[in-house]
């Protein structure tokens, strides 16, 4: 018996087969269904799904594997697929390296898959994308570089980018007129880049960075200036602040920061008020039904990662409905044109300039959804959703 809380490959494969066999009794149109294949590639022994992480997921982190959310999306879409005379079969492969990701992508393509779904780290994702000619749905990676310098024409992102999260938070702070920001940045691999993204958003929305400090998880008294929340947030070295914006991809430091600051000020960023793709407490636009269906199927609360995976499943269904015979080129075209309903109140589509799904963001503290972005009053010449993340005129993705 494994100690990991992860979704075992055998179970997921069985689930996929069961889905494929799901009876079409609801559909009066029992036409000869064409079979469309897609392959999900996930990382073996993913450290994100270690028990100590998924038992107490930090806000914005994964609560578990993508399997249950994809399963739900395919079930939700069964009727539409039946009506279109399309049969969607999704199988799943686990890989343990970049080379493994590339090989799995090639194998799926030669086996006739029309699209890949990937819950992989950035470099693995790029290797899988570059292996062949299939469109790839990115279920996991929020790194901005995948939408900018490392973008790809066939890569479609369901997860909001880091910049979308930072913009959503900065808009919310601007709307509250909480303008003086103390920024704390962690030592994690992505923290420097995410901190730069946060600083750009702070500047973009006219907030003021009063100080920026690194922090470190440590009990060493010689490093207390880096590790002690009171010393990090004291005003001795700088001006007073309205909020503490903490950048901590790991999450262990951030989650202990609220209520431990020297001044009685809110914490935002990776703890306190966090920009999320979804939260199970969201009450509008039919969201409770989605969260409830997910909780029933998986036995846990639906997180932003689950929502992104669910929406990837919906995008796949929509592509299979638009292109019932499948094929990489037909799927690529269909994905470029899909309009998805993700129970966030608006129809959502992929941005042609970087493949990112435009979507509203929820600002939550884990108990409730406090606000959503784009905030009221934010204007954009075409679509207010495009105030979150890289916009077309910036031309940050040269490959598309």
């Amino acid at each position: 018996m494994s100690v990991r809380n992860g979704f075992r490959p055998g179970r997921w494969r069985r689930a996929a087969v069961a889905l494929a066999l799901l009876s079409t009794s609801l559909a009066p149109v029992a036409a000869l269904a064409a079979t469309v294949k897609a392959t999900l590639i996930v990382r073996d022994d993913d450290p994100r799904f270690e028990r100590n992480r998924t038992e107490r997921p930090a806000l914005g982190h994964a609560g578990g594997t993508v399997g249950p959310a994809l399963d739900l999306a395919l079930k939700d879409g069964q009727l539409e697929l039946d009506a279109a005379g399309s049969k969607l079969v999704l199988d799943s492969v686990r890989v343990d390296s970049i080379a493994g990701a590339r090989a799995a992508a090639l194998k799926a393509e030669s086996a006739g898959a029309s699209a890949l779904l990937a819950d992989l780290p950035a470099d693995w994702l790029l290797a899988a994308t570059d292996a062949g000619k299939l469109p790839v749905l990115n279920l996991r990676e929020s790194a901005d570089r995948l939408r900018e310098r490392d973008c790809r024409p066939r890569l479609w992102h369901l997860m909001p980018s880091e910049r979308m999260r930072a913009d959503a938070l900065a808009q919310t702070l601007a709307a509250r007129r909480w303008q003086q920001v103390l920024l704390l940045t962690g030592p994690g691999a992505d923290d420097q880049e995410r901190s730069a993204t946060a600083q750009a958003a702070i500047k973009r929305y006219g907030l003021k960075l009063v100080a920026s400090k690194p922090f470190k998880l440590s009990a060493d008294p010689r490093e207390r200036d880096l590790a002690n929340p009171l010393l990090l947030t004291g005003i001795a070295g700088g001006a007073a602040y309205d909020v503490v914006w903490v950048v901590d991809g790991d999450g262990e430091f951030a989650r202990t920061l609220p209520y431990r600051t020297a001044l009685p000020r809110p914490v935002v960023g990776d703890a306190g008020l966090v920009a999320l793709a979804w939260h199970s407490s969201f009450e509008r636009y039919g969201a409770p039904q989605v969260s409830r269906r997910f909780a029933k199927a998986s036995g846990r609360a639906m997180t932003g990662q689950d929502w992104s995976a669910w929406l990837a499943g919906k995008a796949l269904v929509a592509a299979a409905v638009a292109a019932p015979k499948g094929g990489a080129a037909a799927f690529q075209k269909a994905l470029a044109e899909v309009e998805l309903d993700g129970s966030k109140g608006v129809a959502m589509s992929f941005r042609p300039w970087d493949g990112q799904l435009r979507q509203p963001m929820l600002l939550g503290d884990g108990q409730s959804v406090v606000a959503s972005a784009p905030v009221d009053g934010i204007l954009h010449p075409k679509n207010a959703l495009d105030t979150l993340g890289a916009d077309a005129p910036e031309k940050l993705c040269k490959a598309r």
Partner: protein
Amino acid sequence: MHRHPQPSPAARAALALLCTALLGATPPAQAQGVAWVSSEKDNALTLVDLKTGTVTGTVPTCKRPRHLQRTPDGKQLLVACGDSHQADIIDLATRKSVGKLALGDDPEAFDISPDGKTLYASNEDEGALSIIDIASGKLSKTVPVGKEPEGVKVSHDGKTVWVTSEAASLVHVIDAASGTVLKNVKVGKRPRRFALTPDGKQLWVSNELGASVTVLSTTDYSTLATLNFEIKGVRAADITPVGITMTQDGKRAFVALGRANQVAFIDVASRKVTDLVLVGKRAWNVALDKAEGRLVVVNGLSDDITLVDVAGAKATKSIPVGRVPYAALVVE
């Protein structure tokens, strides 16, 4: 409706003055009746006197009340309660609950057969339509439909039931007698509610995320027209139509446009928007009074209803009701 004899100009002026003094505004039409308004977070119905435009009381009901309908004999009001999984039966004469009717898991909307014997309710969580025998209170059949079913409508002859599936963007055509799905018809994104023309030939479907109304032929289920809402200064994404109702002569339709905070008046024959009236936040469901002179618009995000004068296409009064109001029904 009783028409009052025309008063003399002097009397009219005096009356207008009196009305102004009493109400702070001149009511453009003689309104009467009581609007019953359900509010999702209150477990109660708010009663609004349309003559005075004031809240006269509340009636406690089951948990998370949503859709409201009168029984065909007009004596009772049925309230679908999502969190109680049942309908509350309210006697309109005494304004008291006289019983409950199980509707299956998380009922949202429903309709009643013309003979008053059968109730059809959409079960949002289960993705099902429950068919219930009202007299015995027994569930006679559960029909699986697409996820998040919402609007339910029974044809005039009682033979066909239509259900929208929000998640699948379909209208299910269901044979009432056997409970089988005859056809799935693709409509706009996130279809919500229905209106049926008096001749029974056209089924109007509001598409919340399509900013449109699909007009279906009930003969062959072809799309006769798609009415796309366009409002100057409002983006398509902010036009989210939900509630829809039609006059008894089938000449005019009224559609609440959700986040556009407006209600559209539509000429049914030409399928054109004739008027737009600004109401409260997230205009949600609409109801007409018997004389069709007054439209009650329920605003989900401003916790109020707006009374709209139909002849003048003008909002006359906004009245605070419960928390997260859902539907209204006018009883005269």
